[in-house]
């Protein structure tokens, strides 16, 4: 059956904000799907709440709705657009659940929308645990023993059958949310209760534990004719017990014989057929008992997934694109393999390299969170590396992780041989509990001489992997014994590089510099070669220029084309808090811009989730770690005419100086300017020159200096290490005790760099500005007013564009200051400025907090809010096309009110306090748009998963420091018919203002207290501005409990103000939906 001609318009649902378990991979899959469907002539309607995605660019779909992902809102889109079909399998778990909601509420039936790809029945069979189990038993496959339960007593009786340890999995949650392992009865009771609360249908699955078994994944595709192929097999380095998203994973499977592999393949085919996924990709997870090969099916995702994105990048096979085409009727053999062109998409990719993925964690941001890795995913990002051998790929991945390591130890970062070297007992205990640091302890264990068998006993990590690590450690010893760079034989040096050793590691081993190692090895012909990822192990010629480095004989990169300029874009590496999809968005736009100009665009990145690492985003793609060495190797090969470092976040900026010193042509704003903007003194002089104000500040390299600066500045002060992103270790100090503690912490994080101390402006409004300069003209793309006060990290604060409360004069002043700074800095490309506006002596005073001459996190939001593709315009400026030449004569004028809201991972970290501060904690963002601020804000809250209540009980507790207009807000809530509850202090304030409130007991005063109300589902909203931080405080426990029970919790007065006004507006006005294309009919069209 070829293309379905009965369908004209297809609805795609995106996955919403970036959260743990659902990241850029669904922008990648959704973008591919949009392109694939439009290529076939279908009209594509897209709904996604995440403005930082490429898929929500107006040119990606025909009709794009940046709207909250709830079934009610999507129903409005359906009512307007009347699509013929909905494709639910490309928007992650969110898209799948939403499609199921639409089906359940009769929306699809009402508007005759067909579900394509997978039917509601198939989705249910795969997702509902007992249905899945029954299906597996029917086809003769084993699943771990288990049963779903609806209550704790029921759970206890089932436990007798299953025994401990026992896995507790809540049904219908995302990324394995709430899944954990109970080792004893107490834990069991707690986990079951927690799981029941988390499950939207109040159900958990109790399962036999297969902890320590080998874990595998198969990526499967099926077409409408029942042709099924396996795209990729993945073997987990970490055995069962660690969520696959948190595991180091390896493709292809390494330790299965063909007999065992084919049996797993047979099982995969049987599963996808029995579940009945009609077309598209699915992911099936297996556990294998290493002692006897007993195979059990763990789960199946009837949709594209994080693993399928990984599989696509690992093999070159575009799973999402093909899935989209299969959904509209094509069969696999009717579709071409883009990479080879001559062959078809109906085959099984074979690879001639090894792929290693390593997750990236953010526990440093959540010191109260349990860092133990379990069946609930906790990582925030991942990096992937390709090498000819596991050893090479593994070491490349470790340096691609960007945690300061340059391989498997001996890089100046690891603790071995230092005063902090862990003792053998500590090593043993760290091995026994899976954690984000365990990989380093494997090395220490080997250094201590522990045998592979012993390490295997403790960790369950397959001896094959362990022995490969041991080979690396042995190679390290061999290299160390050589003593120095000039004693090493070329063959040994080559072998070290083939083992994945970085120049940095060799420099540490031989007490020399990275650059000397590089010089020596180049002089001796030990040079990186690049091989292509071609789906077929070179059996056919590949046309897709997708490369990885290795140390072999033959290089496959194409020569420079005469007359064609080449520009390299450095990406952002693995997602982390503070650096994620927004920067990938900018890098993609840079690539699109260069291609539009006829320049060859070359992408370098190591993040498999992203659109930037899609093989058709750029002319050439290098899947490589973002380190000086790896980037220089690429530059040596491709000889670029320019390298762009300002779009990928902090990652490429950190490389800029070294690259520039090595003679790499960095284009755009100069490296000097970028550095000057970070240099305190230079920056202060610069502002003085322009007569701009800055909060009093100082810089300290020692504690003594810090104290003396603090004395000059006065409390409160903001303390932070320099050269870090996302406000890492940034704190506000109100007294000397806090100051001492936080400065000490900042010095540790700063790693030798100074600590910055600023006067903290209390009650100030923070403003973010994104602008582009081309040396002649400055365009201010957007001015955003933060909702939360200054002091909350700009990435965590909601913001509104255009500003809703700032006077015209202030906006004009900010605008002019921005232009002046851009001109004086000679900005070529993007610039972001943060201001604080503080009322002093009755009039607003504008302070400059920070200037960053580079892409910021808000660039995609501004582009979506104003209709001007900022990153693209900036990239063209950098390539030498002025703003005037691009047709930009004036600032874009926003036509609606857009609110950006941050989304937090607190639900994944049980018990962690949710208070916002100067250290960024959010993982993603959503956007709400309307013609007025209250509704735009309401939409942003809904999109972020915060359902503002229309009736019920609201708890209010406000710190004395910030009682502000709480009485006024309380009065509004009372008038709307809410019951208000407060603790004593706040109750007194409110009663004094004539508001009726119920008092409630403090937690230690006994029951019933607030927690009881929450547990009973008798509380709809918490407004709690913090007095102190920490999960151990009463208020901390209240906030954490609110998160656990899914009760919205507002922690700033400004946030409360916006929310109350939104709630009021919702009483009289409905949310409506509007396509981006209607809002900006001219967006993205070439001028």
């Amino acid at each position, binding site marked *: 059956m070829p293309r379905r001609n009965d369908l004209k318009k297809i609805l795609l649902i995106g996955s919403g904000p970036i959260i743990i378990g659902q990241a850029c991979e669904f922008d990648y899959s959704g973008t591919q799907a949009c392109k694939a469907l439009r290529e076939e002539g279908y009209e594509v309607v897209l709904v996604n709440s995440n403005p930082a995605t490429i898929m929500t660019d107006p040119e990606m779909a025909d009709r794009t709705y940046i709207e909250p992902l709830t079934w009610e809102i999507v129903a409005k889109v359906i009512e307007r657009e009347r699509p013929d079909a909905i494709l639910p399998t490309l928007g992650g778990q969110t898209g799948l659940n939403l499609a199921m909601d639409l089906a359940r509420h009769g929306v699809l039936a009402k508007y005759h929308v067909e579900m394509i790809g997978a039917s509601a029945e198939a989705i249910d069979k795969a997702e509902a645990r007992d249905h899945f189990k029954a299906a597996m038993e029917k086809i003769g496959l084993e699943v771990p023993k288990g049963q779903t339960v609806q209550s704790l007593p029921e759970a206890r009786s089932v436990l007798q059958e299953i025994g401990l340890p026992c896995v507790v999995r809540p049904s219908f949650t995302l990324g394995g949310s709430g899944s954990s392992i109970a080792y004893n009865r107490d834990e069991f009771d707690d986990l079951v209760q927690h799981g029941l609360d988390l499950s939207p249908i109040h159900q958990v699955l109790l399962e036999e534990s297969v902890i320590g078994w080998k874990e595998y994944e198969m990526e499967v595709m099926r077409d409408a004719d029942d*042709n099924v192929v396996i795209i990729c097999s993945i073997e987990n380095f970490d055995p069962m017990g660690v969520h696959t998203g948190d595991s180091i994973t390896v493709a292809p499977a*390494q330790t299965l014989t063909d007999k065992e592999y*084919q049996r797993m393949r047979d099982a995969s085919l049987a599963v996808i057929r029995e579940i009945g996924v009609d077309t598209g990709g699915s992911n099936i997870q297996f556990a294998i008992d290493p002692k006897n090969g007993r195979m059990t099916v763990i789960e199946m995702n009837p949709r594209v997934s994080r693993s399928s994105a990984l599989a696509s990048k690992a093999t070159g096979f575009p799973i999402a694109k093909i899935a989209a085409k299969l959904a509209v009727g094509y069969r696999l*053999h009717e579709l071409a393999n883009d990479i080879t062109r001559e062959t*078809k998409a*109906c*085959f*099984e990719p074979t690879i001639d390299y090894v792929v290693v993925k390593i997750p990236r964690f953010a526990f440093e941001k959540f010191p109260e969170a349990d860092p133990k890795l379990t069946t609930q995913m906790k990582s925030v990002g991942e990096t992937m590396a390709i090498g000819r051998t596991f050893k090479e790929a593994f070491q490349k991945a470790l340096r691609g992780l960007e945690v300061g390591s340059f391989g498997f130890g001996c890089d100046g970062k690891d603790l071995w041989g230092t005063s902090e070297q862990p003792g053998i007992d500590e090593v043993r205990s760290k091995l026994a509990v899976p954690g984000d640091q365990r990989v380093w302890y494997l090395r220490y264990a080997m250094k201590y001489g522990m045998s592979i068998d012993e390490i295997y006993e403790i960790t369950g990590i397959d001896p094959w992997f362990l022995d490969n690590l041991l080979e690396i450690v042995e190679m390290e010893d061999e290299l160390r014994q050589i003593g120095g760079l000039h004693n090493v034989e070329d063959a040994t040096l080559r072998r070290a590089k083939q083992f994945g050793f970085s120049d940095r590691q060799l420099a540490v081993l031989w007490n020399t510099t990275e650059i000397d190692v590089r010089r020596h090895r180049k002089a001796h012909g030990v040079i990186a070669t690049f091989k292509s990822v071609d789906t077929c192990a070179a059996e056919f010629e590949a046309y897709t220029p997708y490369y990885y480095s290795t140390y072999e004989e033959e290089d496959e990169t194409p020569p420079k084309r005469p007359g064609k300029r080449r520009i390299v874009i450095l990406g952002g590496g693995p997602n982390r808090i503070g650096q994620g999809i927004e920067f990938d968005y900018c890098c993609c736009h840079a690539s699109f811009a260069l291609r539009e100009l006829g320049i060859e665009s070359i992408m370098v990145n190591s993040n498999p989730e992203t659109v930037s690492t899609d093989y058709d985003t750029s002319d050439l793609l290098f899947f490589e770690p973002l380190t000086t060495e790896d980037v220089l190797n690429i530059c040596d090969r491709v000889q670029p005419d320019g390298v762009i470092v300002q779009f990928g976040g902090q990652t490429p900026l950190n490389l800029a100086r070294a690259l520039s010193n090595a003679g790499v042509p960095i284009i755009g704003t100069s490296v000097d300017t970028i550095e000057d903007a970070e240099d305190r003194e230079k920056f202060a002089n610069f502002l003085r020159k322009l007569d701009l104000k800055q909060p009093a500040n100082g810089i300290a390299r020692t504690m003594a200096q810090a104290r003396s600066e603090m004395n000059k500045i006065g409390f409160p002060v903001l303390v932070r290490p320099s050269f870090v992103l996302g406000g890492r270790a940034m704190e506000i100090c109100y007294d000397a005790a806090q100051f001492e503690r936080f400065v000490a912490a900042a010095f540790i994080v700063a790693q030798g760099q100074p600590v910055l101390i600023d006067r903290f402006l209390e009650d100030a409004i923070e403003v973010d500005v994104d602008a582009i300069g081309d040396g002649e003209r400055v365009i201010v793309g957007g001015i955003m007013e933060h909702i939360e006060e200054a002091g909350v990290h700009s990435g965590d604060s909601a913001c509104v564009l255009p500003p809703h409360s700032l006077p015209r004069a202030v906006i004009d002043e900010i605008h002019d200051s921005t232009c002046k700074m851009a001109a004086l800095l000679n900005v070529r490309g993007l610039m972001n400025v943060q201001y604080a506006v503080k009322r002093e002596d009755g009039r607003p005073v504008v302070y400059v907090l920070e200037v960053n001459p580079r892409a910021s996190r808000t660039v995609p939001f501004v582009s979506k809010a104003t209709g001007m593709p900022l990153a693209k315009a900036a990239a063209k400026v950098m390539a030498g096309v002025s703003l005037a030449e691009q047709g930009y004569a004036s600032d874009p004028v926003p036509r609606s009110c857009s609110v950006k809201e941050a989304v937090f991972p607190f639900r994944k970290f049980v018990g962690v306090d949710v208070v916002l501060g100067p250290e960024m904690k959010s993982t993603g963002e959503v956007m709400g748009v309307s013609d007025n601020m209250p509704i735009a804000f309401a939409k942003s809250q809904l999109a972020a998963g915060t359902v503002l209540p229309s009736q019920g009980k609201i708890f209010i507790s406000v710190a004395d420091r910030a009682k502000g207009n709480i009485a006024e807000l309380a009065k509004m809530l009372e008038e709307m018919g809410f019951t208000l509850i407060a603790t004593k202090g706040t109750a007194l304030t409110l009663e004094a203002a004539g508001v009726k409130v119920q008092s409630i007991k403090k937690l230690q005063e006994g029951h019933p207290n607030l927690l009881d109300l929450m547990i009973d589902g008798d509380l709809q909203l918490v407004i709690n501005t913090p007095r102190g931080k920490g999960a151990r405080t009463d208020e901390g426990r209240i906030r954490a409990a609110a998160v656990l029970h899914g009760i919205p919790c507002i922690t700033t007065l400004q946030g409360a103000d916006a929310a109350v006004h939104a709630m009021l507006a919702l009483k009289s006005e409905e949310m409506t939906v509007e396509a981006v294309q209607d809002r900006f009919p001219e967006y993205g069209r070439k001028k």
Partner: protein
Amino acid sequence: MQMLKTAKLALEDGTIYTGNSFGAEGEVDGEVCFNTSMTGYQEILTDPSYRGQIVTMTYTQIGNYGINAEDVESHKPHLAGFIVRENSRRVSNFRADGDLCEYLSRYHIVGLAGIDTRALVRRIRTQGAMKGVLSSLDLDDSSLVAKAQASPGLVGRDLVREVMPENATGWTEPLSRWARLSNEVAKNVPANAPHIVALDYGMKWNIARHLFDLGGRVTVLPGMATAEDVLAQKPDGVFLSNGPGDPEPLGYAIETIRGLLGKKPIFGICLGHQLLGLACGAKTYKLKFGHRGANQPVMNQLTGKVEITTQNHGFAVDPESLPKELEITHFNLNDNTVEGMRHAKAPAFSVQYHPEASAGPHDSDYLFGQFREMIG
């Protein structure tokens, strides 16, 4: 770390690849080819069809799961030489009872590791299959190239004689417990079971196991057997096996098949398929570099379904030469070569690929059932 001994591969076009010797030391010549399967090196090593060939694995990590007693396709490795990017130092699998290096040594197979196998594959892909010499003894480049050029190659040679069994035997080994999801293993043959005679030109044992699992009595005859020899066995069906090299010099086999065609149901695989073609008057030709791997897509023209197949052949049946009695039933989706055919009048069909898989996917095992139905 033990000292690595150098070994070299020289191609007839003068290219030299220098790496480390592993397995047996020695010097062999053969046609250099590559296999793209990521698993199943032990099955590949023991596949008699690789006689006369130096096989390069495109996947880079080989030896990971060791060697075991079960996963064999004949009693010993038959290929001339074996080339990998990296041979695993450590074996990890619950069934493993040995390692690859020791296994190659035991059977005197010369191995080469540590070369840029992808560069070699790309050379073969662009230049076509080439003769080569693999040596850990002679490391002189020009001497090796001269030897490669002087080596006999595959064309026109009868390699079947070197791998076929000497005597007729009964086959009673079922498919392994890994072949089915249920882990079930076939039971003994019922007394009134049909009798299948397999003509062994270098047959992979998994074919015989499949035939046994059809519930038949299986007798394996050497490929030299005449039609009379076969008919004397009173077979209900005749199977033509895979085997090494060029089908054209195998006049005796072609003769035998002509003598059986129309008399007994016939099913051929790989070389057996080519021989059936030749017996019916078709021609065969040498492919540029052949199909060797476990991911080759084949379209079944009768059902419209695609099978992912295991393949190992350097020669193919020329579709232009097919007599009208032969109908193409399967073709390769990558290059449209003939993958299967059936006889219009006689009960006979064949496939170029390997439905017995091993190593490879099980998509095509229905063909054995089809043969069983044909036998009746």
